[in-house]
């Protein structure tokens, strides 16, 4: 048991160690100060944050519907669950192709958007956000659904007997009780959006400052200037770790207290 476990751990950790060891620490400040890197970082943080907000606004209601679907007949219930889960198992590139076929200039909806309103979505920052939401939202939906399912519905019943309207009950009882699940889902969603590569490059391309997010910039730099790629990887890793640590403490109040 110990040997395979050790190999598994080494497999998870050693690459990160290599990254830290080989990092061009001396050149780091200069590399990170380069304008295309700063703009990729800003673009990545901005779009991942926006995607997470959109996933929260749309994903929490979807999670609630998923919980309600427990009372539905088996077929629609399973279909709904499968639809929500598909992006989790789908290769992101396929997601990107699918988004192109829907929203591309000759796509199912994209054609009409282009013809009637002159709106073109592919290869814009909007496309980056849509790709991220597509790929990352299911993480949030499933986390919130699990939290709601595990919470005691009778708290909502008490709140109603005390005169709480549906909105009051949702905002002051349901949401706070599932807050840890929502935070966990939001963190997963944000880090997944931040790391998004396949769907983004397929659907949004790689235009510096517009659609070239950190992971894409990292991949491209690896061929041009490996040191810059390593620096970008370090940044992505640090951002991910910081987010995890910072939000870990936020999950606790409300549950532990």
């Amino acid at each position, binding site marked *: 048991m110990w040997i395979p476990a050790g190999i598994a751990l080494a497999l998870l950790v050693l690459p990160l160690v290599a990254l830290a060891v080989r990092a061009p620490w001396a050149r780091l400040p200069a590399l990170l100060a380069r304008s295309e890197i700063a703009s990729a970082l800003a673009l990545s943080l901005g779009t991942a944050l926006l995607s997470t907000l959109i996933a929260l606004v749309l994903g929490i209601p979807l999670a609630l519907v998923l919980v309600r679907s427990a009372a539905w007949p088996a077929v629609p219930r399973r279909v709904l669950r499968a639809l929500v889960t598909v992006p989790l198992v789908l290769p992101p590139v396929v997601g990107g192709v699918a988004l192109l076929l829907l929203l591309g200039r000759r796509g199912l909806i994209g054609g009409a958007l282009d013809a009637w309103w002159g709106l073109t979505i592919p290869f814009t920052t909007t496309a980056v956000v849509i790709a991220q939401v597509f790929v990352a939202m299911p993480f949030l939906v499933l986390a919130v659904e699990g939290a709601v399912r595990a919470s*005691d519905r*009778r*708290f909502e*019943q*008490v*709140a*109603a*007997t*005390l*005169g*709480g*309207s*549906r909105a*009051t*009950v949702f905002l*002051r*009882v349901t949401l*706070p*009780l599932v*807050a840890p699940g929502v935070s966990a889902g939001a963190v997963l969603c944000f880090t997944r959006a931040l790391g998004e590569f396949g769907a983004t490059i397929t659907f949004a391309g790689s235009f510096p400052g517009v659609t070239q997010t950190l992971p894409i910039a990292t991949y491209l730099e690896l061929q041009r200037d490996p040191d810059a790629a390593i620096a970008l990887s370090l940044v992505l890793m640090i951002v991910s770790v910081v987010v995890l640590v910072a939000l870990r403490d936020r999950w606790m109040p*409300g549950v532990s*207290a």
Partner: protein
Amino acid sequence: MSGGDLDVRLTLGRGDLVLDVALTASAGRVLAVAGPNGAGKTTLLECVAGVTVPDAGRVVIGDRVLEDSVAAIRVPTEARRVGMVFQDYLLFPHLTVLDNVAFGPRSTGAGRREARERAGEWLDRFCLAGLAERRPDQLSGGQRQRVALARALVTDPDVLLLDEPLAALDVEVRDEVRVELGRHLADFRGATVVVTHDAADIRALAADVVILERGRVSHSGTVDAIFGAPTTPYARRLLARAID
């Protein structure tokens, strides 16, 4: 502003349970609903509170119709003015004692400060003032029960429902808490329904009693009358336990 008598008539089938009940609880009096596990006692309270929908029936407080399956009337839970204390009290774990009690006033239109003031008055009355800033998991069972009762009463309900209010407590503190509960119920002007399967609760708290067996009323009357003449084996066993 007491809402008058509670009049309930309902039928409901859920798997093995077939509930077919008619009962009245008078304003200013405490009605005990006793019966073995699975007799439908909790379901009955849930139907009155509106969190469970009966198959058919009518629930009336005074002249206010809360539920009437024939006339298709169904007042939602939050507008029923029915206070309910659940068996395990269900204090909101994310709120302090004060904010638990202030939840009702706050939900029914009071501002934050006014809601807290009203909650504070009830905490004083229930000797809970020192615990206002505590979280529910820092309270003893008896304190939780008092908070749950205060939280229900601060909304000035027309009817108060208690589901086995002492069952979650340790046996040693039960007698003491029961006496105190009796005092608070005596101050309440609406009708009170207490579900229990403890004859000591019936003796100490109630004036009237209904015994439910397999979803039907087997006895109904004043506590004294029922204790004098139980007619089913369950009722005899239940009441015998109160004497020792």
